[in-house]
């Protein structure tokens, strides 16, 4: 493990934060090592000459089918509300998020 780390522990912590994961100190160490191993493996893949190979965006060798602009019966409001953890009137109730964090 003398190689320079590709991902630092701080970066892993930040990435975990973006996914709303709280990692313990031990987990951070473990996942940082794992992530670096994965990226090291990428180096091996990078040795393959892909100059004349088309980019593969999706593992299924197919194109997305398109559908007609038609709609079907929606889910009933009652079933939607029933499946939510909490509701108020016809809305799904969630803990307040004051600051829009993104988008």
């Amino acid at each position, binding site marked *: 493990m003398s190689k320079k780390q590709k991902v630092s522990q701080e970066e892993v912590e930040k990435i975990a934060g973006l996914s709303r994961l709280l990692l313990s100190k031990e987990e951070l160490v473990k996942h940082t090592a794992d992530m670096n191993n994965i990226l090291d493996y990428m180096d091996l893949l990078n040795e393959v000459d892909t100059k004349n190979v088309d980019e593969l965006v999706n593992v299924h060798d197919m*194109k997305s089918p398109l559908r007609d602009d038609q709609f079907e019966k*929606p*889910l009933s409001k009652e079933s939607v509300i029933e499946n939510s953890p909490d509701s108020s009137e016809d*809305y799904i109730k969630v803990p307040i998020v004051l600051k829009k964090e993104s*988008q």
Partner: protein
Amino acid sequence: MNTIETINKDWDFVIGIEVHVQLETKSKMFSTCEYTYDKDPNTLTCPTSLGLPGALPSINEKAIDFAIQFGSAVNANIHSSFSFARKHYFYPDLPKGYQISQFDKPIVTGGVVPIWWNDKQYDIELTRAHLEEDAGKSTHHLSSNSSQVDFNRSGAPLIEIVTEPVLTHPVQAKIFIQRIKQIVNYIMISNAEMEQGKLRCDANISIKKKGVKKFGTKTEIKNINSFRNVQKAIESEIKRQHQLLEDGQQVKQASLTWNNEKNTAEIMRVKENANDYRYFPDPDLPPVTIENSKIESIREILPTLPFEFENKWIDKYDFKPEEAITLASTRYIASYFEEMLKYDVSPKNANKWITGELFRLFNGINIPFDHSKILAKDLAKIISLSDSEKITTNSAKEILRKLFDSNNSLETVMNEGNYMDDKSNNVEEIIDKVLKENSDEVIRFQNGEDKLLSYFIGKVMKESKGKINHKIITQELSKKLRNS
């Protein structure tokens, strides 16, 4: 406080705009779920738009057609191969934790939107336009410390239109966004009503000293909800940045949100960069390939666009920019004007009547221009009768109003009002009557009081209810007075 214009003397403004337009398809972007505005909350959902586990997206072809229409309208590159990507962020109105959007392979790149600003035409360059899904809508209740979410809008199709940082003034930015609304209205892919949230925009703003090449640090204002606020929000941010820089401080890269109640931009957070969204190709959606023939056939059915009308009328009919802009403001007015020309009305005359009398009638009852209220061929007929002095201008206006206020045909209105009475007889009768009733004045006139002629003219006009041409009255009156 410095005004925008005084700041603009020493500083250049660099503005880029992102406009989200909701596309008027029947079903959502990635699911067979209806979307219409203003339905009861949570009544238009499906497993996909709720982000339920295992639900899969399927692409609405109509949304793609609409994006192609937009791309064609602004002369952009339309890619026959494109793909969708996941943009990750956490927010309660986005239940699956990512928005399906486009990243490195959008459907439309480039393109130009011509706008008018201070009587000059500017070509605003676009970076791209891509398809994505809308999020649900949340409303916050501070008192109960909770938010309420309505998922009806979740998954509605959006096209996001992004400009290069080429706009140079808050007013220009506002005009640009109005132009986008006009274009999507013309090609009928969205009504783009801002108050219904069907057009939303963000503005990227930085300022730099005149002569400096390097851009300053930019900030982004999100959630601007009216045309007026576009200008206000950008102005307020320019002033804030200017103050910071004049005080020797730095502008920090940040996202601000426009507070519609307080009319101020509030800093939300230091902006995250694209990496934080962890974009990657959506594994549920393999790339899309469309036939070039599809693109071509959509291009062919594209209507004439507002800027094409404007340029044509300015070149061909010698219109002033503002005249052309007014006539091209909606597709209905523009085609009405063009139809008038087919009935041999001169362009200047058609413009005068449409933007004069007709607009007055529509404004009077506060409804948008509707070509079926008064048919172009009827207005053309009225104008021709008025021009050939078969009816007076007053009568023409009265006929228009009656047509406008009723469902009667032009023929009925004309007959009922006796506008086309045999005027030579009629005018003689009326003059005889007037002269008889004003015999004293007739004597005074004959004794040299010339100015009484206008008195008689007034009387005859009144008697004829303005239906007889002024010239004819004068002619006939002089004849009669000389002979009596």
